[in-house]
């Protein structure tokens, strides 16, 4: 992959490389997650699940993906 095709984003607090044109559906699939088990925030805004295919990530986007874990 040539560097021009790669963009760096912040994913859950860490630097993460994605291909240009990656949308949220692509990212969820690449991470082997199920979209009905997570919620995603991009740059502080919650993204509704039906908008995942149309939301293309840009360089330096801050992405947070959360799910449910055990808690009291």
């Amino acid at each position, binding site marked *: 992959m040539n560097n021009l095709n790669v963009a760096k984003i912040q*994913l*859950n*607090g*860490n630097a*993460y490389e994605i291909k240009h044109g990656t949308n949220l559906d692509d990212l969820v699939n690449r*991470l*082997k*997650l199920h979209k*009905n*088990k*997570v*919620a*995603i*925030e991009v740059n502080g805004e*919650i993204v*509704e*699940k039906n908008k995942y295919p149309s939301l293309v990530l840009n360089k330096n986007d801050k992405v*947070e*993906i*959360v*799910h*449910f*874990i*055990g*808690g*009291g």
Partner: protein
Amino acid sequence: MIEDTFTIANKNFKSRLIVGTGKYKTFEDTANAVKASGADIVTVAIRRVNILDKGQPLLMDYLDPKSITYLPNTAGCYTSDEALRTLRLAREIGGWRLVKLEVLGDKKTLYPNMIETIKSTEVLVKEGFEVMAYCTDDPILTKKLEDVGACSIMPLGAPIGSGLGIQNKTNISLIKEQSSVPVIVDAGVGTASDATIAMELGCDGVLINTAIAEAKNPVMMAEAMKYAVLAGRKAFRAGRMKKRQYASASSPKKDLI
């Protein structure tokens, strides 16, 4: 006999015991303890997905949110903004509206920050959430929580994870007496008798995590808690005898030889 229904935010539940899903070694242990407890509602936390560890099992694989009610919490949040962000994300995961709000005020005692809790409840209620609020055992503040629309008041029996039991029975009773929404003792239960005491005081339910998860045999303790809650509730409904200063013989004096 009048049916003893337990309703939160217009939804009926069978069990008055709510259990937390934290502090277990494996998801399997969690699921077994939850099953033994008979709980219909479990609390869950919202955290970042581990992106380095792809394809790991999830809590949802062990506890089906279709058969048990997930109650997302805001554990670890110290400001209203953090709590709101967490619960909005929880709702986005799968449409959860019934939530447990806890805004903490101090890392050592995990005591609730009531100012932030009341503020957050107000906002969440306006956004359509059904808010069960973890709170102090102060009757004035719990009244305020009810006024801003909390669907359940959850006063602490003792600090989270302390297992010290119900420290202020008088206040818990006062809160129960004045509240028109369910009162659920959240935090502080250490063993079965503590859960029974909460229920004997007239509380509508009990939320337990550490007392089960940190028991030597969590599954057995989960079952003990199930019976403790049932026993306390029944004793409350049955109406206990009046206390007396002196003895009152149980066997008749008549025809004594």
